[in-house]
Every structure is written in structure tokens, then in C-alpha cells.
């Protein structure tokens, strides 16, 4: 099975992926993890704002908007059958 790992900021709107890792270097990482962005969690890119940033994501049943600077910290895995 082919798996592609991309940054969450590159996940196209409307597609689903699974969180793989979070950049632990960033001080924002802790907060993201506390909010449920932990490895293995399914996530969906919902919509990108008219000006191109931020993007809303659906995770654990709620929606949250992240800027590229935050979503770029998260690595996700897109499974072919998810697309």
C-alpha cells in the first residue's frame, strides 16, 4: 500500500488524513497535542479562508482554524483509500 506523508498545511480542502507526528520543537506543539492533535487521529481539511489562510480542520468531532504556521508543524499520512 502506498502511503504519502505530507504536512497538514498541504492537505487539500475536503480530504481526510491521519496525523503521523508533530514537531516537538515548537512551543505550540504542546497546545496542539492537548487539543487532540495526537498521532493516529483522523483529521479532515474542511475549508480554506478566502485569502488563502487559515484553514479549518475537523478533528475529534470539532472544527478549528489553524494558520499555516501551526498546521505546518503537523505531519499527516494520506491513505489512498481515504482520498
Amino acid at each position: 500500500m502506498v502511503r504519502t506523508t505530507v504536512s497538514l498545511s498541504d492537505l487539500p480542502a475536503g480530504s481526510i488524513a491521519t496525523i503521523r507526528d508533530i514537531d516537538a520543537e515548537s512551543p505550540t506543539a504542546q497546545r496542539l497535542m492537548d487539543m487532540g492533535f495526537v498521532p493516529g487521529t483522523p483529521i479532515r481539511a474542511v475549508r480554506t479562508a478566502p485569502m488563502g489562510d487559515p484553514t479549518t480542520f475537523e478533528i475529534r468531532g470539532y472544527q478549528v482554524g489553524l494558520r499555516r504556521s501551526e498546521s505546518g508543524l503537523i505531519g499527516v499520512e494520506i491513505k489512498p483509500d481515504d482520498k
Partner: protein
Amino acid sequence: MTSKIERNVYLVGNPNSGKTSLFNSMTGERRHVGNWPGVTVQKLEGITSTERATLTICDLPGTYSLTPATPEEEIVLRTIDEAATGCIVNVVDIANFERNMFLTTQLIELGIKPVVSLNCFDSFSKAGGTIDLQKFTNFTGATPFPTVARTGEGTHSLVEYIAKESIDEQTNCENWLTLPEEWLAAAEEVLKLKQTNWQKAKPTQRYSALSDLIRLHPHGADPKTLKIRENLAETLSKGRAKPVKITDLACELATDRYRRIEKLIAACASLPGKNIPTWQEKLDSVLTHKFLGLPIFALLMGWVFWTTFSVGEIPMGWMHSLVDSIRGFVQTNMQDSLIKELMIGGIISGVGGVVIFIPNILILFFWIAILEDSGYMSRAAFIMDRMMNSIGLHGRAFIPMIMGLGCNVPAVLATRIIDNRFQRLLTMLLIPLVTCAARLPVLVLLCGTFFPENPSVWMFALFFVNLLVLIFLGQMTSLLFKTGENSPFLLEMPPYRLPTPSSVFHMLYEKGAHFIEKAGTVILAGAIVIWVLSVFPREVPLSFDYNAELAELNAQKITVQVSDQIAQISHKRDIELMEGRYMARLGKLIHPIMRPLGFSWRETVSLIPGFLAKESVVSTLSVLYLPYSEHIGDAMRKTGMTPLTAFVFMMFTLLYIPCIATLGVIWRESGSTRFTVLALIVYFAIAYIVSFVALKIGEALQTSTAWLEGLVIVFIAVSAGWYLLRTFIMTIRGNRCNSCASSNKCSSRGKSNCSGG
């Protein structure tokens, strides 16, 4: 009769969990707004009593986890020990169960037994969710109460429960949310280093032991703690394909917590899946649509702006006439005295200056309450974030900034919609640089006075400079402080809801009362101080006995000549009186500072009453310049003022200080004297520097030939325009690294040496 139990109740919960609604429905009107000691974060306390107990309910700032990201959230952690001795009510938005339970899990891990308010229960069950409350209690040891805080449903039994003699603890249950053994053992070892143990330690000590284990940057951590971390990582790695690194511990703990939460939820509830129903997602796709989103938002903003400031003018007119009639009443019914002058010149004008803002504030906050409650505010922030981010602001800052065009006072109050304190202060700092409607007539007046030929061109130039200053200051401050303040951008999208009258009422009541009580007093005091400066000392030694002369002239038969003379003499007297008053003395005292800008002492003096209201700059100038000419512009030219200095003076007037009312609300809303004074210095410094640069550029231009002048102006305009354009392009393109496809694997990510490849 036995005395009542006194108990402190602390509400903790996620932002948007309905904590404040629950607080409102629990306490009614008996509340007190104060500050947390040491920090300028608002503390909301209320009292409610039942037959058996008096409960002091404290609304703690909303937070997603105990690990603080902002000063507000730090309060929760700092208060937790104190709160553990009372009663902690954990407000959980059950429509967003998993994430809300994270905080609950943290609390339970620290040995706290919270009373859980399962809020928004109505939308949860409407969406098809069910929960077995008995199982929830059995597996968590916490007592759950389904509530709908917006309507007050369920709060009664919650209050009754916490008002009981002793809150019974569920002891005979297995708690699924407590720390796993490996973690507990490691935390115990960390605590041993601190000569204590888990059993004895307070919740905050337990918390800090845990955070010692997971801290992402363990710099300065002692080798013993590092060793414990290594051992823990090793223990956790057992039986796994991929070993756990010590930098992964934070992630491990968070993952483990969510695993426990998932297990609990699977055992006792069935969730609807998502908190935003499909029809709302469709609504979202229109309201935040790529092309429709911005126009819809613009229309809504236009409506809010129009009702606030245009419709608001009607009640403002009533306020005006009310103040005028009171003034008229005092004028006719009081004996001439200093007190009467104080009443008219100081108090009534001051009070009038306060009440005049009330219609604006109430109308604006009516809409803000509706936008906020309905959930649209988060969408607006979502739409506007990129633009606001270009000047270092949060998307939510757009509404206060745009309201600043109408009046800075409600705009500063509106910054409360921004949760993050740093962002809020930054927005407050920038709002006074937005030219408000009251400054417009002053500009028109000044431009018309100094440049009667083409005032609009100069006005445009002033606006342009103002905009540049605004953007520049925003970028500078966010650049300077961004690294210091750890404030992640996380914009939660709440589901759309129908606003309730009670929450709108609470917002209006709180804002209105707060404004009158807090800011009103400052504005009034400012008005009185300016009045004192302008009428004292009472006796000014005059060079000539004007009154005798006037009396003599008045006694004569009135002819055109005589009335001319009377007017002339009384003008001369007025000027001399004015020069003798403290205000003019103060102006002359600070004149040396202003001289490099080419201002005479008259301009300097006129800036002082401008503190109160910028209109007074013009009226003071007209009095001071009367002996030279009826027309200020002519008079100023006669006394050596060039169009250049006039322009510089206008620029300075525009920038040097927000009006006293804005300053008053900034002081009260920021809760920090230091910040207010700093802001004042910043405005003054900016005004000074910008004016000085403009003066120097202008002077350089004047000595050169006309074509060179044109060239330089074109150059400045082009470079300023380029600066603006670049700012926007940069923000629209975004950070190169984050949009880079290989960013996840790139080792130099987030560092400046990224090759972009």
C-alpha cells in the same frame, strides 16, 4: 438555626464550553468584576445562596488544558490548589466531548474530583447523542450534571448538589482517567527529588512533576530528572516496534490521555460524531465562501457600522439636548460663582462627554453580542485573519479596528472579543491610530484653514501617512514581541446557535455599567483637570485696565465704531487672560521641546486642550491668533507659519494623542497604568518623529527646484506604496517554509537557513 455553609466554587472549562453562561444562570445579578492579584486579568465572581449554603462562584478563565499558553490560562493553574480546597465545577461541552474531557482528565490525574457539568446537553441529545450517567460516574469518580446553561436548564440541581453539607465522594469505583502506573511511578521519583511524594503533594506540585517529565525543552533540567525520563521512555518502549524517545514523552502522555478518554466514551456514551451539523456546514460554505464570504462580511460590517454611528446619532442628539438643557438650567438658576463655572465648564461638559458615548456603545455591543453568540464572530475572524495577520493582529481584531473609524471608545471596549491578552493590548495600541469620525471635522477645519485652495489633497496625504504609521507600528510591535509571547493561533469554530436575550442583556448591562463606572470617572476627571488649567489662576495681572475701558465704552452711545472698539479691547483682554492661565504657562514651558518642529508657542498651547477633544485645538488657536487676523489661516501666515509647518502641525495633531475618553477606556480595559503611559509615550514619539521627518523632507524640497521636488514626492509615494504592497504580498504568499512540500522532512524547518528546496 445553624449557620449556613460557606463554599467557594470554581468554574473551569474550555473556551466556548458555556462557562460564562453557566456562571450567569447560577448567580443572576449578584456579581463582582475585579482583577486577579498580580495580573490584569478580569476576575468574575458572583454569589448565590440556597437554603443551606452561600456559594461564592468564581469564573476562571477558559482554557483547553492546564498547560498555560497565555497569562489568562496561567491563572487556572495558579488557582487550582486553592480551588481544590473548595469545589471545582468542570464545565464540559458535551457536544464536543472528547476534547473537553482532556481538561477533566488532567484534573482527575492530579487527584481532583470535579463536579462535571455536561453542558449543551440539548444540542447533544438533539444530534442523537446518548450518555449513561451512572457508568460515567463509575468510571471517573466524578458526578455529572446535564445542563443547558443558555436556558438555565439543569443548573438548579447542580447548585443544590454543590450546596450540600458534604459532597459525597465516589470511592468504590475504578477510575479510568487516572495516570497509568508507569507515569505515576516516574512522577513519584521526580517528587522524591523534591523531598515529597505523590500522596502528600498538592495538585500544582503534582502538575509540575508531570511537566518536568514531558517538558519539550529540558534545558537546565538536572541529570537526575533526565535519567527518570530516560527510564520512563524505556519502560514505555516495551513491546513496541518503534522505541519512544525522551522528546516524545509529551506526545505520549497526550496520546495516552486521549486513549483513556476514548475508552471511557466508548463505554458510556454514543456520540453524534461532530458538533457542527451538516446544515450548518452548508451555511459555513456560504458565509466563508471563497468569493461570497468577504462581501457578506462587508455587508454585515456595514450594517453594524451604520446602525452604531448613524442610527446612534439619534439618541446621541437626545443626550446632547439633555446636557444642553441641564447646562441652560444651571446657567439661569445659579448665582455667578466659581462653583457655577465648575458646573458648566467642568462637570456638565465632562458628564456630557461620558454619556454621549453610551448609545454608540450599547448599539455596537448589541451587535457584538449577537455576532458572538451566534458563532459568526469566529467565521469573521477566519475570513479576516490573513489581512489582520499582516499587521501582527488576530483575525478578531478586525471588528474593533473598523469600529475605530466611527469612534475609538467603543472600539477599545470591543477588543474584549479577543481572548489573547497580548493580541488585545496590541489592538488597543493600534486603535487610536485609526482616524475616528470626530477627528474628521478637525481635519476638515485644519485643512480648510491652512490650505483653502485644495484641502482634499492634503487630507488624503494625512490619511495616507496615518495608514503607513498604523501598519508600521503593528508590524514592529508584533515583530519585537512575537518571540517572547507564546500565543498559538487556534480558532475554534463553534456551532451556530440562536443568541438568547439573557446573554445579550448581560453583555449590554456589563459593558454599559462598566463603561460609566470605570471609564466615565476617568473622562470626567480629565475634563475637570483641563478646565482647572484653563481658568486658573483666577487673577491674571493685566498690562492695562481693560475692564475700566470697557465699562467706559459701554456707557457711551452704541455706534459701529464703539462696538468695534469694545470687541477689540475684549479680545485683547481675553488673550492676555489666556496667556496668564496655567494652560498657556504649561504650553510655554514645553514649547522648547516642540520648537524643532517649527511650532510657535501658540500651537504648543493649543495642543493641551486638544488632549480633551481635538476640536479644542482649533478653537484655542482662533483665540490666540485673533489679534493678527479674524481668519486663523491668514493670522498664522502673518506670524511666519509656512504651509509646510501647517502640514506638520496637522500631522502632529492627528497623531500626538488619542482623546481623553479613548485614553480612559484604554487605561481601564488594559487594567495597566504602565501600558497606558507607555502607549502615550509611543503616540507622542511617533507623532514627533513622523512630523520631524516630514518637516525635514519638506525643507529639503523647498530648497530644491520644482522638478526635483516632484521627483522626490514621486519617489516617496512609490516607496511607501511598494512597502504596503510588499506587506500584503508577503502575507498572502505566506511563510515559504510552511508551504514548502518537503517541510515535514526538512531538518532546517522553521530556521532561517532553509533553502526553500
